[in-house]
């Protein structure tokens, strides 16, 4: 047996290892390039009160969550009780109502409750694009200086709250 005949075997075993690791990865989850960067600026009308504006600067001073949601998003409905849970834990929650109509969104809040401190009404979805939103719901954890520290794509589960969001939030809270 010549050693060079073993090269294909070795290469193949490496490939199988790679594919095995690949089985446990989610090819659809895209990490955000915004982590560690300044949260993009915006200045939007408030959902619940057209007269009032809601801007990025309103979120500063204290770490907070920015939750991107819409009334047409089924997962958002399932996620909603979790937001109330976080609110009870003392986390400020801001909303970005993404590509929705005002009446649908308000009906949604009337039906499922309203845990938000303020909600930006992003009808065109342009602020959503600035935040790299591609699959609602998405949730950003922003520190007191306006830096994005964490992003969760998809539904917030109790596990995500316990293992990711709350520990990081407490840490950020301690930093300020």
């Amino acid at each position, binding site marked *: *047996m010549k050693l060079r005949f073993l090269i294909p075997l070795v290469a193949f075993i490496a490939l199988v290892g790679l594919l095995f690791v690949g089985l446990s*990865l989610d090819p659809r989850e895209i990490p955000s390039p915004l982590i560690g960067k300044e949260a993009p600026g915006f200045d939007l009308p408030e959902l619940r009160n057209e007269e009032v504006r809601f801007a990025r600067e309103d979120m500063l001073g204290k770490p907070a969550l920015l939750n991107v949601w819409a009334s047409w998003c089924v997962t958002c409905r399932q996620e909603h009780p979790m937001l109330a849970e976080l609110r009870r834990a003392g986390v400020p929650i801001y909303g970005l109502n993404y590509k929705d109509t005002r009446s649908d969104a308000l009906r949604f809040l009337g039906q499922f409750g309203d845990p938000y401190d303020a909600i930006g009404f992003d009808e065109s979805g342009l602020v959503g694009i600035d935040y790299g939103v591609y699959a609602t719901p998405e949730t950003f954890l922003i520190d007191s200086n306006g830096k994005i520290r964490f992003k969760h794509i998809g539904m917030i589960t109790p596990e995500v709250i316990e293992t990711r969001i709350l520990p990081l939030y407490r840490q950020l809270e301690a930093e300020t």
Partner: protein
Amino acid sequence: MVAEIGLFALILAFLLAIAQGTLPLIGAARGDTALMAVGRSAAYGQLVFLGIAYAMLTYAFVTDDFSIAYVANHSNTLLPTQYKVSGVWGGHEGSLLLWVLILGFWSAAVATFSRSLPREVVARVLGVMGLVAIGFIGFTLFTSSPFERLIPAAMEGRDLNPMLQDPGLIIHPPMLYMGYVGFSVAFAFAIAALIGGRLDAAWARWSRPWTAVAWAFLTVGIGLGSWWAYYVLGWGGWWFWDPVENASFMPWLMGTALLHSLAVTEKRGGFKNWTVMLAILTFSLVLLAAFLVRSGVLTSVHAFAVDPDRGLYLLLFMAVVVAGSLTLFAWRAGKVGLGGGFQLVSRESALLTNNVLLVVAAAAVLLGTLYPLFLDAFGLGKISVGPPYFEAVFLPLMLPLLLLLGFGPRLRWKQDSPTELLWRLRWIFGVSLVFGMIWPLFVGSWSFLAGIGAFLGLWIIGSSLKDLVDRLRPRRESQQTLGTRVRRLGRSYVGMQVAHIGVALVVIGVTFVLGYDDERDVRMAVGQTVEVGGYGFRLDSLDEVRGPNFDADQATVSVFRDGQLMTTLTPQMRYYFSQEQPMAHTSLHRGIFRDLYVNMGEELPGNAWVMRVYYKPYMNWVWAGAVLMALGGFLAASDRRYRMRVRREDEVVDEDAKLAAKDAVKGRGDGAEPNPAG
């Protein structure tokens, strides 16, 4: 009952596969003829039971048996019957059943057409195919049974995805699977040869026609997939370098290399280790394709359901098969002779260069396909590798290959004179270069890519035709009629030239459509005319029409050229009753030099629509080329030297053929592919 009979038949087929995968191999090792003979009957039995299982599932589809989960998910009472029949392979489980049925078919075909082969060889080949069958039937049975019951039964089925309700999709998967699975025969021959320790010219001769047929089917399958995507997806694309397409393209490239390498092994007895390696790699890529498509490790528009169990099973199966084969290879390879010697400039060298280029091309496609996974696995971020990468990497690899293709068939075995060769082909080269560079000017403004494409296409066609003419020219000493001379060419040779001309058509088609296609998103109101690619498109009317399982908005568009009405197109926006999303249905006017293609986009206020209008020059050359390539493969496989007969009464020796064959194997001549005097 139907589901239970089907499941039972599948279990019986599985048991027969176990018998086929073990007993003949033991028999061959012990020299026990009774055990060896099991292979053949097990293969036939397996085909029968797989056929029963398949027939049961088809019956369930046709009779709308929604108590079977798979049927409930992929059919609907309103679905036209032909799509109920093809709906059987519209999802993961059913397509897998088709896969194993085709595997059973190939096994039975080997059992039938191998009667003249030594018993041990047949036993080993069928044994290896049995092992492959164990893996795939087991996969169907244990992770993906299409016969699972839905309790309670559904009242109505969820319907087949409208994209799959298309004639192109009726035949695409069977052809593709015939190709994929067909490579298991070449693989089985290679493994049998390794086990038996006899890698010789006879082995190459036996496996060559099987490889050619599998390759031809895969060519048809890939071509049909592309043809289907072109008019069904509705934005004029025909090749996307999507992971699933790459998954089918890699075994095709490797299989093409194998086909050419087998030629060297058969004719000259050389490069046996390399040929065996290619046979193993080709089938490994088939297994990889099955894994990539069915495991969900990569996102693709064509991928099947994601289920980690299935992915794990397929990965393990692939690991066992491929690692086993490669270990066997490492153990057994190297014990074979070197084959006939040859010079730097010779047909052997050309074929090996072809092999290097094709294998590197396949490896590059593999690299690009798996690279995102590779980065992700090491936590280095997520990237996408798409058409711009593959075009940048793949096209340059094809240039030298296509240039070489014009020389290859004219090169002599053993050695040839480069200067003489160039001299023989100087006119063809010059004329194709000049005309190739001018041709694009008739289509649009000059483009380098189209110029190169046209040159290479003309060069391949020219040198093929010149070779053909040279061979048909009467030789001084012989008195043969033209008919005899044509017959003496041999189907193997004619098949090769036909396939090569097919390649040329694909090259011209691809480069022209890349260089000159034109498309517009336009707002069209009734009565309005727009210009695209020199054609006028006028929206005549908008109507509502009704299909068997959908309603549709239909636009009637008249197409004019220089004020003359050419054709009327009727694209539709279909609203399938079972789907939320509407689906655009393209209308096409196909032609030799261009396709016109109209698709409905979105409805606008004021009785208008956004229409996508495309002008696709030379598109059909791509499909025509694929058809010729496949035809060439089938022709070559039907060459009479592969049709060895066993009947004694046929023993009237055809001296000519016998001498040619002997010469070929000894490497003293060209056998059935004589070279012209020059």
